């Protein structure tokens, strides 16, 4: 049924010679679309990206609400909250949550935010939306696979959501789900059916991610418009390319880890189980290695961090440049540093495992490789700083979030130098220092990249602006609030306070932080309500936002702004514009404008990059 809507971009052809015919046909097809094919089973990359985004927003709210619930427990361990009973039912009888559901919430919060929001919702949304528009293509290489990618994602989400409502509760072994805890249903309630659903959901998510990733790579490499050489691509596209490469190479390893875990759970194999005595009996399994799972998990798990960060970095680069009215500084250095990050991302996974008892010599090698990754990250930070240096900064909402992104990336990135050094990790591992580090750097900072992207490209998505005032309120509360929540956690970590504890009252070493935990919980709730303001702004602005009058509201250079305000399926009405210059020509065009879009031909003697 999708064929009528399809514009045949999935047929093999070189990227520009058919462009003209498609342009003629697409308007004609547009009218025939049924609601289902246009908005639900759509093959238009722009609709699919909005589906990814709205699904991501749903999961961000759900995951955020979970964090509010477990923060209530952490901040006010001796109080009861009737609202908990409303949401969690018997899991929180009398308004006091059970440890089982506490761990379930922590686990699902981590899983959905890492995978569904910051992978599906971030890379899924913006790779889909921006790749065809910024490289000058009518759609993805395979719009059909692209549609499947979303629907696998959606089904994965439905399964994860269902797992919240089963009798034994959702998976509760932490988002890393280390066996044997996750392999043995006797070990915890969440390791029953909830864990199976978790694994199935993740397997489907991986399928979605692979379908999407392959599509992004093929589209970027093959379908660029005339003149759009690789060295003229906006950094967003480079970032999406490396993100997809990372995903395609590492997600299959997680899939294999999940499949082996399913075998251990149901087929009596011993991949991860050895010499376990549980629930009063000794299991027959001997010879497996629980550490094997950790190697497989982190072989994805670490690149996953960059799958989350790279799109945020790419979008921040684009946004900082556009709103400072200056070219991005060190375009090639930015690409090289992304290549460095991509390669190193595969070589650092065991820094999550310094204290598993692995060979200290091997640990030493991973220390070296881990700290190496700080170099490309530092290069990027200095390049961003130089980009805004002597610019002409417009403090639009996306720009504020872009600046916030850099600030948080610095703060969170630097603490990585503590954790990456095994001599410090031996104490800081699995404490609140880790929580503070990764929430700031790949949680909040990636979210800031995503918010910057949403505020920046919302006008392209919906032909309307989001409300600025609400945007600024959202920015300031979130930015300050994030520091208030996560900064003090470093200190708790330095004191050795372990993560994933349901309460600390019985611990002589950690109970002095009760007051602080309360303050953090209150800040977390305030920040959560600021996110609701964002969601409110997002949905109201779709219908009520200020209308766009100029197709290029930010005076940006990249190609997406040459498309009509409401691009149809096929993106450009006529021919796809030809590209003549790089994406960052923010300079005097001779007519009083401070930018020269990519499709403007070179003036005599000008260098097109």
């Amino acid at each position: 049924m999708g064929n009528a809507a399809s514009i045949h971009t999935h047929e093999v052809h070189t990227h520009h010679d058919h462009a003209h015919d498609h342009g003629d046909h697409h308007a004609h097809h547009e009218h025939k679309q049924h609601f289902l094919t246009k908005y639900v089973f759509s093959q238009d990359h722009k609709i699919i990206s909005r589906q990814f985004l709205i699904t991501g927003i749903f999961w961000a709210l759900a995951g955020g609400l979970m964090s509010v619930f477990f923060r209530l427990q952490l901040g006010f361990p001796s109080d009861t909250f009737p609202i908990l009973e409303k949401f969690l039912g018997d899991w929180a009888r009398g308004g006091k949550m059970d440890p089982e559901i506490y761990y379930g919430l922590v686990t699902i919060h981590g899983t959905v935010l890492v995978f569904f929001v910051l992978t599906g919702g971030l890379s899924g949304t913006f790779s889909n939306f921006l790749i065809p528009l910024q490289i000058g293509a009518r759609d993805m290489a395979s719009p059909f696979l692209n549609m499947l990618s979303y629907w696998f994602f959606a089904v994965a989400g439905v399964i994860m959501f269902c797992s919240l409502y089963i009798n034994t509760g959702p998976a509760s072994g932490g988002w890393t789900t280390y066996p044997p805890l996750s392999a043995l249903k006797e070990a915890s309630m969440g390791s029953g059916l909830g864990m199976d659903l978790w694994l199935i959901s993740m397997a489907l998510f991986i399928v979605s991610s692979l379908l999407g990733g392959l599509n992004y790579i093929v589209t970027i490499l093959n379908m660029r418009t005339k003149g759009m050489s690789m060295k003229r691509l906006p950094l967003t596209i480079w970032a999406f390319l490396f993100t997809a490469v990372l995903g395609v190479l590492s997600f299959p390893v997680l899939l294999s880890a999940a499949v082996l875990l399913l075998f251990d759970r149901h087929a009596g194999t011993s991949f991860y189980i050895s010499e376990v005595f549980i629930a009063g009996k000794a299991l027959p399994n001997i010879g497996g290695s629980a550490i094997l799972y950790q190697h497989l998990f982190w072989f994805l798990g670490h690149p996953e961090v960059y799958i989350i960060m790279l799109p945020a970095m790419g979008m921040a680069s684009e946004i900082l440049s556009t709103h400072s009215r200056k070219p991005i500084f060190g375009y090639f250095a930015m690409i090289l540093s992304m290549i460095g990050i991509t390669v190193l991302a595969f070589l650092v996974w065991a820094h999550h495992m310094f204290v598993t008892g692995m060979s200290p010599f091997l640990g030493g090698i991973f220390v070296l490789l881990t700290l190496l990754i700080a170099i490309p990250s530092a290069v990027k930070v200095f390049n961003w700083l130089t980009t805004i240096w002597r610019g002409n900064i417009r403090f639009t909402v996306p720009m504020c979030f872009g600046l916030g992104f850099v600030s948080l990336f610095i703060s969170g990135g630097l603490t990585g130098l503590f954790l990456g050094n095994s001599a410090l990790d031996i104490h800081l591992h699995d404490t609140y220092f880790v929580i503070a580090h990764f929430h700031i750097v790949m949680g909040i900072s990636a979210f800031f990249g995503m918010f910057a992207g949403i505020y920046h490209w919302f006008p392209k998505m919906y032909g309307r602006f989001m409300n600025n005032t609400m945007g600024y309120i959202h920015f300031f509360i979130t930015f300050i609030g994030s520091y208030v929540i996560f900064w003090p956690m470093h200190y708790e970590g330095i004191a050795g306070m372990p993560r994933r504890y349901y309460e600390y009252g019985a611990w002589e070493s950690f109970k002095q932080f009760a007051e602080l935990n309360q303050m953090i919980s209150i800040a977390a709730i305030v920040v959560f309500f600021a996110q609701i303001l964002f969601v409110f702004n997002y949905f109201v602005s779709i219908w009520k936002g200020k209308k766009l009058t100029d197709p290029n509201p930010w005076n940006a250079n990249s190609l997406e702004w040459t498309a009509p305000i409401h691009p149809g399926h096929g993106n450009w009405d006529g021919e796809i514009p030809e590209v003549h210059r790089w994406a960052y020509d923010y300079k005097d065009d001779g007519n009083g404008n401070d930018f020269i879009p990519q499709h403007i031909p070179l003036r005599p003697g000008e260098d097109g990059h």
Partner: protein
Amino acid sequence: MSGFLILCLIGLIYVVLYQISRSSEMVATIQGEEVFDKKRNKILAWSMMVVWAALMIGFYYCHQYMMPKINLIPASDHGESYESMFLVTLIMTGIVFLITQFLLFWFAYKYRKSDTRKTHYFAHSNKLEMIWTIVPAVAMAVLVAVGLKSWFKMTDPAPQGAMQVEVVGKQFNWISRYPGKDGKLGSRNYKNISDQDNLLGLNWNDKDNKDDILIPNGEIHLVKGKPVEFIIGSRDVIHDVGLSHFRMKMDAVPGITSRIWFTPTITTREMQEKTKNPNFVYELSCDQMCGKGHYAMRAIIIVETQAEFDAWMAKQQPYYVQTHPEAAPAVPATTPAEAAKDTVKKLTMNNN
């Protein structure tokens, strides 16, 4: 009812915010977009500096508030090298942090939009790129070198004559075992485990087990100034021996034996005086998510003088005697030094 009122109040706040936001759009139209934008841009540029100042003041107060709450005295030799390593890293990252955060907000403020200034078209400079590739590279080399030096010191094999204590995790408590008079930990097999009379699955055929002391609640006694090696295992899922005051940590993995060693340098009583907290106690926390009772998986470590330790040890009865009241305690005489060598071989759980 109060829940409903709170909901209404929150809803009202959103409506008010929405109305304010809408009206600001209206004001913009009345004043003229350009004038309005210019004014707002100026306010926001200033607010960047305000935000920066707020962050710095916030960090300062946070530091002042937190430091008295943290026990900064490391209680082991490795803890001391951890602290010095931490300080080196803190100074290096701290400098970068202060400079980059300042530049970020300062540039944002300084280079706010102005009609008179032309932006500086500055797209690349190999020299600058080289500088900020090489400087971090050198800094990283220093951190790696210093870090690995302490790392290898911490993870070297335990010194000769180190006391050995086995620490085994189970859902949800710790079990500790001392080698007894012969200085040897006997072999064990997980298939022998019984919650009634053989918590660790000791092989009773192994004579080395007959004098082993087992402490079911995981309490550990250590001697000040005497190196101790923890032989770490788990009965069921992965746990982690977290020794926050000694700045050490090691996973307890079923099927695998892991080890750490350190030398306690401050007795519990001395630490109570130093921290002015009479309730101070060294705690062993589980630092790896292990299930429902993870947060309560606690054991106590008591660091004391050799004399106190000996007095405590003399009161302990071998686990074999406890579980086999009919058997007479028959302990073969071997020198502890000889025995320590054998222990290593015998510790795999499969050993029959």
